[in-house]
């Protein structure tokens, strides 16, 4: 246990990025850079698999904890994982190599800079999921803005500047209040160590305001209605790999934050604000589903569907039921896989036709059959068909919700129908129907790397749909312990 596996996970991509930075890349042939990046992220993935194997799911204690003095008498560098965070680390290390493979087709210029940004991003995201100190968490959480801003701004589409600014300023505005809250916690408890804070609890007088400050940050990042408007813009303008990172991993930071910090640190406040979360989640599910129905741009449609899916996630988290929270985590993992795949699917046709408008397509099923099959699979997974991972998550969330609040659960269940409507309608308009646009005939089917990426995403989507036990086993104990702690703190303080 002496090997600092988590720090290695955090550092490795950055080292790869540093290496890329110093490798001279000639313009024509960027293979070296790509292989370096791919190699680094693949090693990282296997390292995280190794972590998962070593991980002991029978305890809710933090494992692989590393602690070093960082700022003397103020902050310690402390990382560790429990059942809740380990899956997100796996998701990150799994998605990143796929992103790097996908740049083959979409990123034409400044490739090595792009790869550097992606690798640094990976470092920061892993850091977010395993930091056990609020300041370290904040550091990683915010630092991710820099590479993402550049990814959207440099390699994005036509309105990239607007979107990059909106993304950056929205999230920064949300986060600064969290910084105030973190410093306040330090002032109240004399520490920002999450484990110690779990044990000592936070003064009930301050919990509401602190909860709201954290909420302001997480709500923007999730994103929850009504502060979700940066997301469609950012998604639409970002390059495919950027959208994938954004949808698959960045959005999960907030869901993770809700579970780890809002529930863990402020149980009393979470109890008070649950109705608020319920309301916003339900509005997000219904309202953004309707918006998604009306979109003409495929990426925008998927972006709005992300908002709706994250609505389920926040709903599930605040049911404070075993099933609800488990469902939320599985939903996040599943959404990470499925939305990544959907963005890649859009990327595939975009690379060929340079259009994201649904109108452009139609009747491509006979031209690119392989693509159509995989796209079908992910469409069904997105609407939560049994047998896909999307179903497990949604089902568990709704089960938790029915236990807690009948009305909310009923409305949320209706959202599933609208979800099915917009996804199927999208699929129908793009893939089926008459072939009107004759340019489409020149499209070629998935090439090897695209097929590889989409299959990589399809396998876990199906596997966890039929057999979600590996996921549930990993998170089960941590969540039940979290809920016990929650109820205990709630009972002892009120």
């Amino acid at each position, binding site marked *: 246990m002496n090997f600092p596996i988590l720090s290695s996970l955090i550092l490795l991509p950055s080292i790869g990025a540093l290496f890329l930075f110093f490798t001279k890349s000639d313009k024509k042939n960027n293979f070296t850079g790509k292989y370096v990046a791919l190699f680094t992220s693949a090693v990282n993935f296997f390292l995280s698999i190794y972590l998962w194997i070593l991980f002991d799911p029978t305890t809710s204690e933090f494992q692989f904890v590393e602690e070093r003095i960082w*700022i*003397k008498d103020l902050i310690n560098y402390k990382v560790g994982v429990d059942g809740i965070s380990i899956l997100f680390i796996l998701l990150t290390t799994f998605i990143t190599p796929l992103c790097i493979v996908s740049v083959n087709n979409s990123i034409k210029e400044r490739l090595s800079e792009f790869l550097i940004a992606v690798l640094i991003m990976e470092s920061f995201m892993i850091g977010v999921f395993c930091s056990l100190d609020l300041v370290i968490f904040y550091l990683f959480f*915010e630092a991710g803005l820099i590479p993402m801003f550049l990814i959207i701004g440099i390699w994005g589409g036509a309105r990239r500047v607007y979107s990059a600014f909106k993304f950056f300023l929205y999230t920064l505005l949300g986060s600064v209040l969290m910084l105030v809250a973190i410093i306040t916690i330090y002032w109240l408890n004399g520490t920002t160590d999450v484990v110690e804070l779990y044990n000592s609890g936070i003064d009930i007088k301050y919990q509401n305001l602190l909860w709201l400050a954290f909420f302001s940050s997480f709500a923007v990042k999730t994103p929850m209605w009504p502060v979700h408007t940066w997301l469609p813009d950012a998604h639409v303008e970002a390059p495919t790999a950027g959208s994938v990172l954004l949808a698959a991993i960045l959005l999960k930071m907030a869901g993770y934050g809700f579970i780890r910090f809002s529930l863990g640190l402020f149980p009393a406040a979470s109890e008070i604000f649950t109705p608020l979360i319920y309301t916003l989640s339900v509005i997000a599910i219904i309202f953004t589903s309707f918006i998604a129905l009306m979109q003409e741009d495929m990426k925008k449609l998927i972006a709005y569907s992300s908002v709706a899916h994250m609505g389920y996630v926040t709903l599930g988290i605040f049911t404070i039921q075993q099933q609800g929270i488990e469902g939320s985590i599985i939903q996040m993992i599943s959404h990470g896989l499925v939305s990544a795949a959907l963005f890649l699917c859009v990327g595939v046709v975009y690379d060929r036709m340079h259009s994201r408008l649904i109108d452009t397509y139609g009747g491509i099923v006979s031209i690119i059959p392989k693509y159509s099959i995989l796209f079908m699979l992910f469409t069904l997974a997105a609407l939560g068909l049994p047998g896909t991972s999307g179903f497990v998550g949604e089902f568990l969330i709704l089960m938790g919700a029915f236990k807690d609040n009948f009305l909310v659960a009923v409305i949320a269940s209706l959202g599933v129908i609208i979800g099915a409507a917009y996804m199927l309608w999208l699929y129908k308009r793009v893939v089926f129907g008459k072939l009107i646009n004759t340019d489409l005939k020149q499209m070629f089917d998935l090439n090897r790397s695209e097929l590889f990426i989409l299959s990589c995403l399809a396998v876990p989507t199906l596997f966890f749909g039929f057999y979600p036990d590996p996921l549930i086993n990993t998170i089960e104990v941590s969540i039940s312990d979290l809920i016990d702690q929650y109820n205990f703190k709630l009972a002892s303080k009120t």
Partner: protein
Amino acid sequence: MENLQLVLPEIFLSLSIMFLLILGVFKKNSSRLVQSLSLAVLIVTAVITFNETIGINETKLFNNSIIIDYLSSLMKIITLLAAFLVLIISSNYLKTFQIFKIEYPILILSSVLGMMVMINSNDLIVFYMGLELQSLALYVLATFNRDEIKSSEAGLKYFVLSALSSGLLLYGCSLIYGFTGSTNFDVIADQLNSNEYALTFGIVFILVGLAFKISAVPFHMWAPDVYEGSPTSVTLFFTMVPKIAALTVFIRFLYVPFLNLIDQWQMILIFLSIASMLFGAIAAIGQTNLKRLVAYSSIGHVGYALAGVAAGTNDGIQSSVIYITIYILMNLGLFSCLLMLKRDNNYYEKIDDLSGLSKNHPMLALSLLIILFSLAGIPPLAGFFAKFYVFKAVIEQSMYFLAIVGLLSTVVAAFYYLRLIKIMYFDEQKEKYDTDHGFWLKFSLTASTLLILIYFIFPSQLIEVVSRINII
């Protein structure tokens, strides 16, 4: 008299200035020699300061009118090093405009001497003397490119407004003298009677004068014009060095004689701080000239440094010293970049001149990117830690309003830093700039960028250095 060695740095610096002046007058074409000697003088003075005074306990000299303690030694060393860096990277710029003259280093040395006296002062008269010495040198420096009408305008503007503020300051001093019977900080502290409202007036007048020198809102009006008009190397000096001395005096003046009146001045300081942060952030948005933009951004940063002073604790003071140190580092990097925007003997200072910099000069653009994100206070860069310490000190005093306004204004400020990054990275490229910059310019840019970038690995060091500051 055995303690004379404690003022050895000042004595050495004054003698050197006189010597260099004579040397410059009697030896023709000696500007290069004077420049090198001045650099040596600054370094030697810093070394002497470090050797003689850094380790000693608080000592007062000359009828208690001068104080030597850890704060003053530290601030003097920072001032000297900052002046050294300014001087060493400005030579190329001066040569381009053919103003590479002996007066330049000598004026900088004299103003540094004035600042050292200010930092040492424990008496209103000594403080005022130091202030005037540095200001007089600065007026001339602002007009240094005398054939340029803007430069002359800047100097004149600075002179008129600065003289006005000095007048106010002096009036405040006389009020305080009138009500306490002394100009010495310690005696004032003893004689303090909080019922005297006129004393508060005195404090306010002095604060106005100081706020002017440090360019805090609402006494900032001179800064954008002067910063824009002065030669860039002088602007660099303006944005860095005088702020250190002014901040020290702020701390000394408020915490030694007037600590008991903290209720009275804390509000003023909070106002100065909030106004500077907000105004600096908002006014910078519309700027098209980089130097003007830097002026507004420095107004904002002064606001953050003052927030630490307003906290009223040792932690607060330490945090603002950290802030100003990191700010200097970032500014040094920023100006090194500005001084590299040179083509055909012409320096470019419009925002649009940065357009597409990342394609023509990727390393320069990357450095500027890091510096700008750091100025915006985005972790894990040094600028974030500077803000973190300040707001930690502020929140520990439950001054939530100040903290929240401050952090919200960082979001506004982030906008114009992002705009620069956007222009560099997202816009179309223009002509290339020269790349034959001197060694020192490249060195200062690389060093400051690297320090900003890796600060998060060793954050404790700077804290340890300032943690010995103990005023209260």
